[in-house]
């Protein structure tokens, strides 16, 4: 799939912004984006986030026969995989110009600088050596893949532990991690590459270009350096003429950046070591339980219980309609039960009821008094009482409705009924 093209307006804007010493994400000219280093469950797995750029490095090892011309040296192998996941412009399995360039750059940065003691990887001279393979996968591309890949690769190499081996005569024993603790690689120094983008034929310089800046840049200078300020590799691409002072300035900036990043890597490694020693969960993948019977078990969730009584009461209040739908037997006078006759009509009940209620309010002074009493209660009483009172209201209303058509003047009956009801309730 084709990559999204860069429009003219973006290009113009970016160049104008760079002239004004502004960058898209508000960084200064020499600022790196935020770097985050995290580790996987296994040794030698490292994720690096450089702003939105994200890469993963995984180190693995294998016992192989050494190269003929170097019989007692281990083999280092580097591979950068540009997957379409990182950017729609990358294609799977095809060696693009960019991937060749990045691979070569990473090799020069890490292998040719001899930062890893390859002789310590020899098991039996001329027959068996360790081959250390570093696979760097790009997970998201927002520019400056090289720096992210170099940080990920060197951190993963520092993090990696290879199985212990012993030789007795011609017999080689490889121990599992349970038998003997795996051994870290011996690393002399940590080369880290720092990218500089040049604009307007080298007039403007930016550290850590993002994807859109990379697209409009004229040239790129990548300096790989270790914290002792030894330059391990330097590469200029894009075909621009750089002044000597410009290159010197870049190497000075690179020195500062490399020491910062090295510190960060050491800190990340230390944190990880502590976490592993503590035996707690560490790394990204460990947060997901796998293949365990309890994988689906959930922890007990704490439930907020503070205002449960209030909400429960609220529900009870709202549920006041319940007694109306199932009309209770009317009790006209205490001690007399009546079923069927004069029962409440459940058809179109609500409207009727309200009307009645209003009428009642208008012409029934006695009931109003009761109302007032209840209201006062509401005002002063606590929450629990309200529901009780509301039910009382219902009780008063219920017998009222059927009585009406029959006999309008039987207030005493009603009152008596109400009172009896109340007594029953309490």
């Amino acid at each position: 799939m084709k990559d999204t093209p860069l429009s003219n307006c973006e290009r113009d804007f970016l160049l104008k912004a760079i002239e004004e010493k502004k960058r898209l994400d508000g960084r200064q000219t020499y600022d790196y984006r935020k770097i985050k280093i995290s580790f996987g469950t296994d040794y030698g797995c490292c994720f690096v986030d450089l702003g939105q750029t994200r890469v993963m490095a995984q180190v693995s090892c294998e016992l192989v026969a050494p190269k003929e011309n170097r019989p007692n040296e281990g083999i280092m192998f580097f591979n950068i995989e540009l997957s379409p996941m990182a950017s729609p412009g990358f294609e799977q399995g095809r060696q693009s110009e960019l991937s060749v360039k990045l691979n070569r750059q990473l090799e020069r940065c890490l292998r040719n600088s001899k930062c890893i003691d390859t002789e310590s990887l020899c098991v039996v001279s001329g027959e068996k050596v360790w081959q250390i393979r570093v696979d760097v996968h790009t997970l998201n591309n927002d520019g400056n893949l090289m720096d992210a890949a170099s940080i990920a690769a060197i951190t993963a190499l520092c993090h990696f532990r290879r199985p212990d081996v012993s030789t007795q005569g011609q017999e080689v024993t490889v121990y599992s991690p349970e038998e003997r603790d795996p051994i870290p690689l011996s690393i002399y120094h940590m080369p880290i590459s720092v990218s500089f983008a040049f604009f307007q034929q080298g007039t403007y310089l930016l550290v850590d270009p993002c994807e859109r800046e990379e697209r409009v840049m004229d040239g790129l200078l990548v300096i790989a350096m270790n914290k002792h300020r030894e330059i391990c590799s330097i590469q200029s691409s894009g075909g621009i003429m750089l002044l000597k002072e410009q290159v010197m300035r870049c190497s000075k900036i690179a020195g500062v950046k490399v020491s910062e990043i090295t510190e960060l890597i050491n800190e990340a490694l230390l944190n990880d070591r502590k976490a592993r020693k503590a035996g707690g969960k560490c790394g990204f993948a460990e947060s997901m339980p796998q293949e365990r019977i309890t994988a689906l078990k959930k922890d007990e969730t704490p439930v907020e219980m503070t205002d449960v009584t209030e909400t429960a009461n609220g529900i009870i209040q709202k549920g006041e309609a319940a007694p109306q739908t199932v009309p209770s037997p009317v009790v006209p006078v205490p001690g007399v039960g009546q079923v069927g006759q004069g029962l409440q009509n459940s058809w179109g009940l609500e409207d009727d009821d309200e009307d009645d209620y209003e009428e009642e309010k208008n012409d029934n002074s006695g009931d109003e008094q009761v109302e007032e009493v209840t209201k006062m209660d509401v005002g002063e009483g606590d929450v629990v009482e309200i529901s009780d009172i509301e039910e009382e209201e219902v009780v008063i209303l219920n017998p009222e409705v059927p009585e009406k058509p029959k006999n309008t003047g039987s207030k005493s009956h009603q009152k008596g009924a109400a009172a009896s009801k109340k007594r029953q309730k309490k």
Partner: protein
Amino acid sequence: MFSTVRERVGEVLLPGDEFSFEAEEKISLTAPVKSEKVVCGPGLRRCGDRLVVFKSGVLRHKEPNVFWIDSQQRRYVPAKGESIIGIVTAKSGDVFKVDFGGSEQASLSYLTFEGATKRNRPNVQVGDLVFAQFLIANKDMEPELVCIDSSGRANGMGVFGAGGLLFRVSLGLVRRLLAPHSDIRSDLEQLFPCELVVGMNGRIWVKSATVQQTLIIANLLQSAETMTAQQRQQLFRKVQQGAF
């Protein structure tokens, strides 16, 4: 009948959630029987007698019975009549190829600009931005864009002028910006005077008096995506105090 869906409006749903409709247990004999139809928008799919959610997002509802999932996706699928910001990638004969962020490039005839004739070609270069709407958006055909409305007027569409910054946001944010009484837009209006073009394909073009202001607006809009209204207003206020 659709009360099960209706009562979950406004909730966050995940793919795999489903609603099932059983026949109603009570049928009114007197009320006239209306056949209720539910219209499923993006993120909902009928599966037998169930309604299955296949996008994560908030369930929305529009009277009488239109339901859809409001998701924060970034992939754009063209739809007829939607206005988008495209980048001209090629000029071939009498059509331009326009990239709009979809799976395929759209074609834009040079005659579909306001006032364009065979003689009078519009001045469009490769890499220019165009604001256009879809005339054909069909999964089996090449999408086709036009820069005029049905009466032949430009109506705001056409080639962009120089300057300004283009950036991408999610489609959810774009819809929020284009909503009739958008709160983000009203917050933004109080900040700086700026020109804003919002394409339904998630591209936003912004131009302001200075580079600094343009950058601020672009960054604010990109960060407004994951903020609550309160956080956003706080941030906008902070920017306003810092800017003046």
